């Protein structure tokens, strides 16, 4: 029996409200990025959604450290932090997804290391902060402080459990019969993995990569502790955007936030066709 029309109306109304609420802070950030200093300062006369006088001054400020709009300068600019975030988040994602995929396949298919899945999970049983002092000492020892590879490596390690467990779930859902058929045809296990199984979980890898990338991209604490100057990332740089004459530089932070939101969005759009499938992979038992 078809559902009554009003149930559809209610459902979509609720969805619209939920989406609206979720997007409200994003929209506020987007409009603030184009407001002049007088409209986002704490002493601004009132709060309003749309800029009264749209300006690019906030973007100019974060990329040049100054703007004619206000008599404020900043020592650091956003160029290097954006590059640092891109490099380290991407490499960290690559490390976690590659290692997680291989590890998950081995455990899923060969049942090696009965305690390995729990062992990997242990990396996430406590907050990363709890182990950061020993990590810092190790990173100093191996010369990894404030380097692109040092930050990428820790991102890879910290997000490995996510990648491993997600991929294990996906591999568990791939029918073994297909792999066995390939084995019977004379394929080696690696060839089976590479040519048969991996193409089947492409969508799962894409959604895992996006998830891990977002975790790395938005990290603050680890980057704060393991960088000093050369490889400071966007969130750490954003924290420095305050000024003696105006306090928190909300406009500049909004402009940087808008830029920082772009890579995950672009990444998401680029893998959109895999994403839906990846997120629903294994939802139904065979």
């Amino acid at each position, binding site marked *: 029996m078809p559902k009554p029309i009003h149930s559809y109306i209610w459902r979509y109304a609720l969805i619209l409200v939920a989406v609206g609420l979720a997007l409200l802070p994003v929209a506020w950030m987007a409009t603030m990025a184009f407001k002049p200093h007088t409209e986002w*300062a704490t*002493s601004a006369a009132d709060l309003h959604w749309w800029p009264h006088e749209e300006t690019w001054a906030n973007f100019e400020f974060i990329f040049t450290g100054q703007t004619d709009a206000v008599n404020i300068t900043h020592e650091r600019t956003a160029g290097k932090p954006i590059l640092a975030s891109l490099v380290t988040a991407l490499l960290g994602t690559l490390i976690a997804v590659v290692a997680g995929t291989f590890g998950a396949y081995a455990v899923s298919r060969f049942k090696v290391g009965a305690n390995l899945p729990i062992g990997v999970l242990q990396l996430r049983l406590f907050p990363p902060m709890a182990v950061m002092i020993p990590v*810092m*000492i190790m990173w*100093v020892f191996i010369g990894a402080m404030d380097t692109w590879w040092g930050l990428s490596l820790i991102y890879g390690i910290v997000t490995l459990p996510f990648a491993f467990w997600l991929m294990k779930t996906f591999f568990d859902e791939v029918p073994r019969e297909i792999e066995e058929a390939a084995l019977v045809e004379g394929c080696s296990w690696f060839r089976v993995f590479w040519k048969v199984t991996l193409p089947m979980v492409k969508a799962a890898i894409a959604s895992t990569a996006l998830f891990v990338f977002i975790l790395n991209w938005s990290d603050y604490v680890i980057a704060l*502790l393991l960088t*000093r100057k050369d490889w400071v990332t966007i969130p750490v740089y954003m*924290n420095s955007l305050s000024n003696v*004459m105006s*306090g928190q530089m909300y406009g500049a932070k909004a402009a940087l936030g808008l830029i920082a939101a772009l890579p995950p969005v672009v990444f998401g759009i680029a893998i959109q066709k895999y994403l839906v499938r990846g997120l629903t992979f294994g939802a139904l038992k065979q």
Partner: protein
Amino acid sequence: MSKETTSRKGVTRRQALKASAAGVAFTAAAGIGPRWLQSRDAWAADLAPGMTGGPTGFAGAERYQYDDNMSEGRAVAAARKLKAEGKAPDVLRILMTDGAIGHFTKPWPADGPTLQSIWERETGIKIEFFSVSPQEQFNKVIQDVTTGSAAYDVYTFGYAAMGDLSEANGIVPLGEWIDRHGADFADPSRGMPTPESYSMLYKYGGEPMSVCYDGDAQVWVYRKDLTEDPTHKAAFSDKYGWEPGPPRTWAETDQLAEYYTGRGSPEMLGNGNMMSAFWGISTWYNRYVSKDNPNQHLFDDEGNPLINTDAGIQATEEHMKSLDWSDKGGLAWQWGEYYGAMGDGNSFMLGTFSNCPKFLDTPGSAIEGKLGSFLPPGHQFGGDLVRRSTIYLGNNGGVSTQSNYQELAYLWLQWSGSTRIFSLLTGNPGGFFDPFQLANFQDPLVNQSYHEYHVPIIEGTVARAVPTIAIPGQFAMHNTLSENLVAAMTGDKSAKEAMDDTAKSWKKHIRKRGADKMIGLINAAKGGWSTVIDKA
């Protein structure tokens, strides 16, 4: 055929490359070298007779120049010697807060050199700054100490952290170097205003442990134009029985705050003081420490907290009341927001870091020419008026125990913290380090950027300033106080409960750290408290 390709004249490729390299090197040496030497000569020729270093190229530069018998000159000479002996690095690494590095990297005055360039051309040792936000400054230092990463030769930190860093073996004692290289930090005619202030800002446990970069006494500014307005004058006098102007006591301060709240458009805050977590401690301190004659201390001589006595509870109640004349949202502000509100003309008065007029009373600002400043308000005891301010936060430079070039790191601190170079440094609007040395207050460039009406008030305030807690664990102790003050202001606790809880926590902290040692340090720190008393 040989492996090397031979040209028609019998010259091998390797020989040709060698000859080219030599040619390039010769050309560079002949072309660039003398030019560098020329500029060095030209710079030295611009120095006043008898001077061996310092800035050149602007009117009055000679005031900041020095010879080998002056504090800065001795530091440079010793640094050169270390360089010649191979005991100096190519680059000295300095951890410093955002907003202060401009003192060294921005020219001041506009046609002058940067301080960084002066040091580098005189010593041949480059400087690399690592910036950090004020909130993360101490954490970065402690991380470097704990991990032994030796990332910096010089740390900067709040003066009150000297105890923590000394106890953590993070900074090196400086007494021997100060004597050997003859620093002028405590020079009675040019350095710290009083022996007490030298003790407060440079020493921990009686030993010099760091070099002060930032006075940071809380100095009061107000909207002078509004107190001179005839309408306000009449209305205020009718209500309170005295003409509005610089207050002498906290009672008068509160009356001004009450009256000016809600005046103007947009409605003004009568009390523009910092009230938020962490930052608002200084406002509470300013009120509390003048509640006895000569001082209302934080601890008695046995190390018992005094903040839950009548004086502490009363100060807290008054502090809570003053929230009526503040922005309620201001409980989440940081110091920049309070500056912003004052700078935009939305606050009547503010007791804060002394650079407020330097940054806010500037051409084209909403309050240009409208500010005045006054000595800290206090409490009356018979014929005495005890006016007090506190030195909260501040910035000191210390030599890292992790550094391989500790003496050179100290020499940098001596050079940049001595009275001539520091006068030039602190006047620079490129950073927020504030004046505190006697020589600074006489300096024309300091008076230009800090304004002539404000500089004598800074000097008077520094003389009346007392320290906050500067013993090991001060961060935890300040956090407890801050949390309890906020709890009182938001109505979660009464003033008495808040102070009792703070006192209990402080007591526990002192016991945990070793009561005998802590009591000794508390009593030693009392040597830094001002004894200046005014007539009522």
